[in-house]
């Protein structure tokens, strides 16, 4: 079933380009908010991680879409990179399967957790 490295690598680079934009946006929101304040990113003002801002962002559907997309591509990009590093250390045949399997499992689990959080916070926020 192994997918060819040609395809995996292409997606890795394309994912990287998407992350460049979306994570850049996230960093702008969280860590460059004093230098370049953008109201839409921190609608409640104050600190980006204040509950008020979390709620305000959660009420925007774009936040949910961006976070789920960013989660997916970043998990793929990061875990493929990690797998690359581990494979280049020349593990034995059995260990290779274990590494790939564990990485896929961790990726899927964290994607589910993160997607649930991005969706569930909307009902928390809209109910608040």
């Amino acid at each position: 079933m192994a997918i060819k490295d040609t395809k995996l690598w292409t997606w890795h680079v394309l994912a990287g380009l998407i992350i460049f934009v979306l994570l850049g946006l996230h960093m702008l929101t969280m860590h460059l908010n004093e230098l370049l304040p953008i109201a839409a990113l921190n609608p409640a003002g104050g600190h980006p991680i204040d509950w008020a801002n979390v709620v305000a962002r959660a009420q925007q559907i774009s936040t949910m879409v961006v976070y789920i997309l960013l989660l997916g591509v970043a998990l793929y990009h990061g875990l493929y990179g990690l797998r690359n590093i581990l494979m280049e250390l020349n593990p034995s045949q059995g260990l290779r399967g274990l590494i790939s399997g564990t990485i896929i499992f961790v990726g899927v689990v964290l994607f589910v957790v993160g997607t649930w959080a991005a969706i569930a916070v909307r009902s928390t926020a809209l109910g608040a």
Partner: protein
Amino acid sequence: MSNTAEKTTDVIFRVRRFDPEKDAKPYYEDFTVPCPPGLVVLDGLWYIKEHFDSSLAWRSSCRMGVCGSCGMLLNGKPHLACHTQVREVAGKILMVAPLPNFDIVRDLVPDLAPMLDKHRALKTTVRRADTEEVLDPTDQYWQSPEELTRYLQFAYCIKCGCCMAACPTLATDPVYSGPMPLAQGYRYLTDSRDGSFQERAELLSGAEGPWRCHYAGECSAVCPKGVDPARAIQLMKRELVLDYLKLSKRAKCEPARLVRPEDRSGPREGIPDAPEFTVEGATSPATES
């Protein structure tokens, strides 16, 4: 006339020795070699062999940088010994070691067989469907100067192995093909006479392909012939990705056709005929049919 730049200075050659029949592991041995300006490392090794220790072993042949035999690690960087002046790389001490990422056969002799096996595994010949023509040629294949330029740079490779020694991926990963086989694989992939693009794309789609190159660039930095294997590998990735995304023009190309009579231009106007032969019975290809 004293010109300090012209003086012969003594340089300590710290040479990595290993005799598989006597030693458990390699060790360093020092030799003091008088080095006039312009002395190359290979000459220094010959001096050691002639004056100190005739058992010192290394590979060398042409002594002019074209055969690729004398690749060695000189003060931590892979170079050709015949091509590198001692003063270019060393002050008082010159560390001479065999190329890393290859097993050591003896002293400065690396085992290059795995590199050549990987090279062969990437089918580094022109492959096309008309095998009869290839085996028993009737004429040349047509190729434009632009098509030649696409691969000519990579055809200058002398298989010295310096790029393989410099590659960080090969330091840990034996499956990765390495800069030389991949650069040669690209040389044939992009040769317009080759007709096996899909077969090559398949061969290069796994761990033997270019995907484990992360552009550290050291292969191109150490290449003694300017082959730039790093460029070949990135251009190869481009071709393979474009093919995956169904945007490749190369994949759809027919391999080069035979030269046709109309491709051959005759002599330009105003050029006089060749003079008559002065030797009786002589002929030339031009006068034969």
